[in-house]
């Protein structure tokens, strides 16, 4: 029986790139949808607000695994035969991260003091100007540390994409393990690669947070 070798490491390296790619898709897609939901969540129109609350509650209240299964089987029901696994995984992770990012960003938008919103209105800025010139520049500073922190969650959760047949790092580990059966070595290496991706992000997030809280030290 072959043992763990450079060939396997190379395979894991490629899979790690897919993990990064899927994370990027999830972050960009989730960011766009999540920002829209965050805006809906603080909108003055009541039904928009309730729709956003419902969306966030549903996404945060069901496991990502179930969400992925639903999309996987749902796409087949909708009549598409051959669906690329990347699409199914990308859609699932986009929905998942949008639900969490929306709630994080809502908090950041609302943490901009109310007087700032009122002052912008008094200066006759349009809602668009108020958002882009006054609120967002302040909210984004607050939003950066938790957003980077959430990136770690996204990277870790791409490991669940294996259930829809997407070969990323965890699935690659499983495949290698099936052929050489050295689970301890294989999954330790897989864990080490995840750690190498996530740890710098966590550290960065913590540093940003410290910088933000300088005044409170």
């Amino acid at each position, binding site marked *: 029986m072959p043992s763990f070798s450079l060939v396997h490491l190379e395979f894991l390296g490629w899979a790690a790139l897919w993990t990064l790619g899927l994370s990027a898709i999830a972050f960009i897609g989730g960011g766009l949808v999540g920002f829209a939901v965050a805006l809906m969540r603080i909108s003055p129109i009541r039904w928009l607000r309730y729709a956003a609350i419902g969306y966030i*509650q*549903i996404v*945060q*209240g*069901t*496991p*990502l*695994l*179930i*969400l992925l*299964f*639903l999309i996987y*089987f*749902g796409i087949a*029901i*909708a*009549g598409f035969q051959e669906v690329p696994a990347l699409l199914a995984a990308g859609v699932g992770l986009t929905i998942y991260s949008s639900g969490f990012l929306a709630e994080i960003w809502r908090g950041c938008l609302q943490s901009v003091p109310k007087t700032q919103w009122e002052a912008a209105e008094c200066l006759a800025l349009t809602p668009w100007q108020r958002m882009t010139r006054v609120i967002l520049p302040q909210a984004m500073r607050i939003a950066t540390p938790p957003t980077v922190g959430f990136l*770690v969650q996204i990277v*870790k*959760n791409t*490991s*669940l994409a*294996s*259930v829809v047949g997407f070969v990323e790092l*965890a699935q690659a*580990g*499983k495949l290698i*393990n099936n052929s050489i059966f*050295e*689970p*301890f070595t294989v*999954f*330790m290496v*897989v*864990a080490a690669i*995840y*750690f190498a991706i*996530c*740890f710098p992000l*966590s550290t960065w997030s913590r540093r940003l947070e410290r910088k933000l809280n300088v005044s409170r030290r």
Partner: protein
Amino acid sequence: MTYQFDFSSLWAYWPEFLQGAWLTLQLSAVSTVLGFVLGTLCAIGRADGPPWVKFLVASYVEVIRNTPLLVQVFIVYFGIATLGIKVSANAAAVIALVVNVGAYTCEIVRAGLESVHKSQLEAADCLGLSKPQIYWHVIIRPAIERVYPALTSQYVLLMLASSITSQISAEELTAVANRIQSDTFRSFETYIVVGIIYLALSFVVRIGLWLFGLAVFVRKRKLGTAL
């Protein structure tokens, strides 16, 4: 779309869905309690232990928080087996979940411990409280009371994350769902039902932990103020 939704064939399976939900609750409850104990001990060790304990706890927390639960579950289940120790899927699931949530609990409780003001400790010292008394009455209880909302969210997430253990065929709701959908070929409907059950469970867990908080933190309930 020509697909006909058919939930009726799932009716026959309601005892199994219920059983699965109950198993998930049990799995989460055991992991929550053990994880809380582990995490609190680690937080205390990190705050007041000797340097090597601090280092050990810090590495444990960083390693767990920066690797996916799925891989941790695989390492516990398949990895321990190759070391010659045989554990059942359910035991492996509990071990992995406890180790996982222990690290998160440690971080949260540590924030609580740090929030206890120094003057409180000095006051307790002046009142002649012993070290264990100070620990229990002045540090741990107020600290946990303060971070209780964060802990609640973490344990709801744990309940949802326990679905991952279906990947090593531990007995819980998602594993039950996988079995039912391969029986009925009604995959989409099955996972919709299970999604709704998880949604309900997350409300149940949230409310349960809230009631537990009311029962445990008497001072807060009577005075109605934050610490």
